[in-house]
């Protein structure tokens, strides 16, 4: 009884109680007609609208002048933004305080019309009336469609070369290490705790297989696997600079001045913080990289220049299906 009374009074929210929520909505008619129409314009609101429009127009004109004068971007943005904001305020004032305020009720179109559907099916059917070998024709059209799709899609393969040499690298035994300015690196350039980026002499520096990071650590602390014992003359180590996780440049070298108070020397990639222990052949100690950085065996020649003693120990850069040397 009370509920009925409240409904009739049209109190806000009466139809949205817990009961409603429990039952997915039935289309109950609460008898409320929410439509209304009010004329709200006052001289004040109309003047405000006019002022906003004029002010906005003037400010936007000023923007036109300022851009011709090549004003500072901050001034340009400020002026254009204020002009637009004034017009926004004008439209909002106009919409809420000047034009008639109306709440209307529109009947929703019924979704789906069974009679029309039946008719549609009928019309579609009539289109192929008298055709007897439908299956054959449908199968043949399927063949045609497949061919067409293939003909449309296959030119995509022209976009790029076959992925054969994604891990190609110019590093071979005897290739000289040079710095970014093409100057050969000398074994005496690096002190313990130094790092430089080096490239194969004469190669394209931008190839992923090119950049290596050369670091020097105390040779007594090296813990390379037995097979790599001769790869680090005087504690000089070289690893591919391209992270084996996601291809970023491994551009952090952490080298402790006083090791007991901090961790061992490590190379770190700043993208996802994969951390590689340089003394242990770039073993991964933190982060998402799945394998060590490939190592470049080094030797020092008669002129104290640093030379590659062989190719990189594994595939350069991010892994893919065809990665062979992990």
């Amino acid at each position, binding site marked *: 009884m009370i509920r009925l009374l409240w409904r009739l009074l049209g109190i806000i929210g009466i139809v949205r109680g817990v009961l409603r929520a429990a039952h997915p909505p039935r289309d109950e008619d609460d008898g409320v007609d929410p439509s209304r129409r009010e004329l709200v314009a006052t001289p004040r609101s109309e003047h405000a609208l006019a002022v906003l429009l004029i002010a906005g127009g003037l400010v936007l004109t000023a923007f036109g002048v300022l851009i011709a004068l090549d004003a500072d*971007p901050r001034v340009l943005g400020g002026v254009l933004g204020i002009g637009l904001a004034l017009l926004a305020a004008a439209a909002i004032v106009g919409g*809420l305080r000047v034009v008639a305020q109306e709440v209307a009720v529109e009947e929703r179109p019924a979704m789906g019309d069974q009679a029309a559907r039946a008719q549609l099916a009928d019309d579609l059917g009539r289109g192929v009336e008298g055709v007897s070998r439908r299956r054959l024709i449908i199968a043949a059209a399927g063949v045609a469609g497949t061919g067409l799709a293939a003909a449309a899609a296959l030119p995509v393969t022209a976009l790029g070369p076959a992925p054969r040499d994604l891990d190609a690298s110019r590093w071979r035994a005897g290739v000289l290490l040079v710095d970014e300015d093409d100057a050969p690196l*000398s074994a005496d350039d*690096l002190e313990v705790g*130094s790092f430089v*980026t080096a490239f194969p002499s004469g190669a394209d520096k931008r190839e992923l297989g090119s950049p290596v990071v050369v670091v020097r650590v105390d040779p007594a602390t090296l813990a390379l696997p037995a097979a790599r014992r001769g790869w680090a003359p005087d504690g000089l180590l070289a690893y591919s600079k391209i992270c084996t996780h996601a291809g970023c440049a491994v551009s952090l070298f952490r*080298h402790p001045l*006083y090791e007991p108070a*901090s961790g061992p020397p490590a190379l*770190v990639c700043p993208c996802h913080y994969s951390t590689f222990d340089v003394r242990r052949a770039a073993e991964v100690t933190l982060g998402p990289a799945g394998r060590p950085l490939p190592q470049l065996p080094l030797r020092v020649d008669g002129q104290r220049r640093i030379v590659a003693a062989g190719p990189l120990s594994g595939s350069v850069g991010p892994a893919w299906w065809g990665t062979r040397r992990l």
Partner: protein
Amino acid sequence: MSDRHRTAKRVLALVLGSVALWGLGAPPAAAPARNPAVGAGARAASRSADAFDGRALYVDECASCHGPDARGVSGRGPSLRGVGSAAIDFYLSTGRMPLERPGIEPTRTEPLNDERGRANLIAYLTGLDARGTPIPIVHPQRGDLPRGRRLFADACSGCHQIAAKGGVDPEITAPPLEDATPTQIAEAIRVGPYLMPRFGPRVLDEHDVDSIARYVTTFGRHPLNRGGWGIGNIGPIPEGLVAWLLAGGLLVLVARVIGERST
């Protein structure tokens, strides 16, 4: 009533968010006045420095970790013999030493010793062993800006971030360089303090160091904010905060003016 209250709360949240953002982008403390040939002062002081006073300071401030004879204490602090004046000056002038207790990450603080005290300590320690890197002399104005920028991107930005705002190692943090003097920059390059690698004169020559110092002390740590408020110059994180809190917050408020607030 309650709507207005809620709107007020949201405005407050927006303001607080903006203040937090402002904190991110707060302009660095005014850079200390640059001295053209920095380091000269320290050297001048060291000429008249008193190793005896230095020894007193050493016993007071350093000996507990580095040992009474500066040969180090196992597990507490390394030997200071032959480390060179660059390292000593760097650690003392940036307030990184003396450390509160051994083992913690040394960070930049107000230096404990004034210039004279530092000179005395250097005189004492270099008197024990004169080897090591001396305090480098830097002439930032002789540096080449584009070269400095490129070298900084090559060798420094991996840790310190390209606008010298600092970064992560990720075991420790690499400090922002907003207060580093040209001499301290050169000292750090040569010495490789804490976990930083070091770069000898054959990797980065004097002109390279001048160039890096010039880039860091100009455009590096005072980036050109031609586009307005720099929001910290660290890129997409503050940009995302502005997009969500400032633009999103403001526009939701406008939407609530345009639209109905209750259903």
